């Protein structure tokens, strides 16, 4: 690297060596990084080995007891299961619908900004607004969805109160809320596709369907992998909309693992145990990242 740095002529040499300009530039970030990323990570790990609580008693070291308890805790496994189930249920439509929207909008039909506004605007709504809105739409007696179903003769659905429906309802809300983000990523990728591929196809006389199948979709496979990876990681972290729509109910049937951490720590006051579950969840996220990285590497070869 040819980058010139600390010229020896200015400043006292010892200060310069201790705090070279590069380090000075990185320092504000490094301080925040140490305080609010490294320290909490270490402290969280330490707390997971103690019985720290929000009540006044002094925490004691308990070794791996919290983890032993966690692995035998049926509620934790159930919550992890809900998180994974939500991830599957949300990721598939969030990728497929986003791709469909982007392909349709990219065809150059009139009214570009209307489509972009319609699909992306929900993403700009704070989750508090999204949940109030969907609680209203899902309202069993007065909500729009049941009114519409009534017209086609389908009985009232307990969107958020029926255990077999609630997670689907949460996934549907999530699709509506966040698909615009993936849609924009796809749209950007489509706009970056090189013209020459299509020119060759035009010379060969390939039809629209043929061009879509043999050029556009294969060209989009890379971005599809990226969007899927981002989506899986985002979905695994779900908390906000589930907490606000169902509080994890009915009967805990939608409670994701992040909400379990919140409940154990802030409702149950058991910060030590909550930290242990946090780390179990972290392991799940790392596992998912590693799996995706491996898949990505294999694809690249």
């Amino acid at each position: 690297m040819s980058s010139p740095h600390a010229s020896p002529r200015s400043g006292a040499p010892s200060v310069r060596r201790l705090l070279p300009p590069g380090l000075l530039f990185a320092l504000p970030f490094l301080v925040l990084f140490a305080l609010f990323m490294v320290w909490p990570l270490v402290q969280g790990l330490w707390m997971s080995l103690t019985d720290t609580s929000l009540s006044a008693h002094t925490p004691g070291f308990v070794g791996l007891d919290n983890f032993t308890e966690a692995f035998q805790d049926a509620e934790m496994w159930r919550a992890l299961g809900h998180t994974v189930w939500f991830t599957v249920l949300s990721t598939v439509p969030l990728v497929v619908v986003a791709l469909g929207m982007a392909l349709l909008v990219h065809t150059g039909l009139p009214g570009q900004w209307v489509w972009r506004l319609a699909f992306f605007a929900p993403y700009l709504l704070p989750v508090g607004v999204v949940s109030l809105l969907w609680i209203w739409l899902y309202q069993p007696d007065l909500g729009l969805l049941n009114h519409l179903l009534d017209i086609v003769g389908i009985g009232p659905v307990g969107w958020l109160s029926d255990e077999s429906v609630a997670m689907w309802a949460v996934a549907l809300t999530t699709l509506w809320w966040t698909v615009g983000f993936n849609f924009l990523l796809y749209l950007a990728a489509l706009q970056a596709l090189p013209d020459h591929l299509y020119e060759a196809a035009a010379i060969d006389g390939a039809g629209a369907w043929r061009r879509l199948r043999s050029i556009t979709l294969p060209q989009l496979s890379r971005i599809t992998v990226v969007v899927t990876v981002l989506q899986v990681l985002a979905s695994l972290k779900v908390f906000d909309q589930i907490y606000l729509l169902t509080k994890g109910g009915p009967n805990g049937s939608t409670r994701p693992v992040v909400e379990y951490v919140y409940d154990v720590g802030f409702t149950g006051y058991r910060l030590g145990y909550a930290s242990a579950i946090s780390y179990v969840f972290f392991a799940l996220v790392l596992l998912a990242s590693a799996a995706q990285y491996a898949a990505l590497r294999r694809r690249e070869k």
Partner: protein
Amino acid sequence: MTSTDLPLRTSSAPRVPRAARPAPARGRLRGNHHVLGDSRLARVPALAVLAVLALVWLVPMLWAVLTAFKSEQDASDPDHWLWPRHGLTLKGFSTVWERGDLPLWMLNSFLIAAAVTVVTVLVSAMAGYAFSRTLFAGRRVLFALTVAAVLVPPQILIVPWFRQMLTLHLVDTYAAVILPQTVAPVMVFILKKHFDSLPRELEEAARIDGAGHWRIFWSVLLPLSRPMLAAVAIFVFIGAWNNFLWPFVSTSDPALMTLPVGITSVKDAYGIPYAQTMASAVLAALPLVVVFLFFQRQIVKSVATTGLGGQ
């Protein structure tokens, strides 16, 4: 709009030669030939599908707006659920606005999101510069740590953050809400990669003139980076404006709540007043939707560049 538009275009000029642009595009509609062809047969059904899809996406918002303009009585009338019997009214809006907490939460959200954005962008840009343009002991290790930290979900940090804020006596302060949100390893990574992509010749001239690191960073690189900085800033701002979990955990005083937290904390003793609830939802949604209408292009670009970790 134009004031942010202009620098976006002019300052991206130096990057053009590097891209080895192909011949100028044949106009804005170039996409349509590729995906659908010119035939009416394909375009009409596509337009129909698109219109239905857009309608489905808009209906929830339109329904909320309609409810907000109904009287409480009409909003909970199952027999006239579509159009209100007693006409439209602004009562819901005025009731919500006069209660006074909504404007306060908006202000809180704005102050917190603005503070998070300014600190994050400045601190991340400086770190990005350090990792891209300077040499110091530990640089590689620190950058590797930063990249690794991208994998850490903030959700696992809420418990230690909360413990930390208790220790620092910061619970229920703006600082508690703001500080943890300013650590954005992804943005450092994106900005480092961005600085890497800027040609060094531009700084050489300044360096010959005797400019130090700060001058080069502030007066040469940052002005050249305006599109990228805008993209990062928009992304960070939207994230902070909509952030829920940490503001929810770190504040219990209603006077400090942000919009997403406050708006869901309102409970009425007499059942849910749907018209009022939707009025507050509409008011809460308004700021970012209006901003989007004005800065659509920049926001779209911001998501496309930062959303993918800097392309």
